[in-house]
């Protein structure tokens, strides 16, 4: 069964550094998303991406965040200058036109 894959599984970075989280969505999907889950809390929507542009974003997704689909298979989330409070699990997700959202297994980001 096709799945969303994310790399790396764990990323440790120092405060103020830039990080790029990578995702390969399911190949025939058209809609792409990033969510995050702070330890012990619920999963939160960050951003949705369709037709090479952001379709919606949450208040969390400020100017420090950006997304990109650099080629036909990858979808990335960049955090320009990480803060301690950015530490969380980041989940990439994708869906087709009329299909449910499928999540990857996440990247655990630890900011020290």
């Amino acid at each position, binding site marked *: 069964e096709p799945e*969303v894959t994310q790399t790396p599984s764990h990323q440790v970075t120092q405060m103020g550094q830039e990080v790029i989280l990578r995702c390969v969505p399911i190949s025939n999907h058209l809609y792409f998303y990033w969510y995050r889950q702070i330890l012990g809390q619920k999963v939160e929507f960050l951003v949705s991406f369709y037709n090479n542009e952001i*379709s919606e974003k949450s208040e969390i997704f400020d100017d420090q965040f950006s997304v990109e689909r650099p080629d036909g298979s990858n979808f990335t989330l960049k955090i320009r200058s990480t803060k301690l409070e950015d530490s969380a699990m980041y989940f990439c997700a994708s869906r087709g036109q009329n299909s449910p959202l499928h999540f990857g*297994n996440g990247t655990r980001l630890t900011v020290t």
Partner: protein
Amino acid sequence: GESVGLHLPTLSVQEGDNSIINCAYSNSASDYFIWYKQESGKGPQFIIDIRSNMDKRQGQRVTVLLNKTVKHLSLQIAATQPGDSAVYFCAESPSSSNTGKLIFGQGTTLQVKP
């Protein structure tokens, strides 16, 4: 504000029994609902979804019930197995045009006793 919540943080059941996990939502305009299972160290795994024009939908060993009158959603798991042990999240979509934008509840931990 909008919120999706679960009635119980932990549910413990005996293997073979049926499980019922409940969820309350607050946005009466939501028209799409979905249940996810999350095992330790993994991402949310799709279980079943339902649109607001239905009140029941069945899958393999799972049934989702939607009561729009009281804004309540439930997940029933038949013949619960040890592999069903996980955290279960309900989620709603407040946007009919972007059903991937979901508001998640806090989650219910299901523990299956052998």
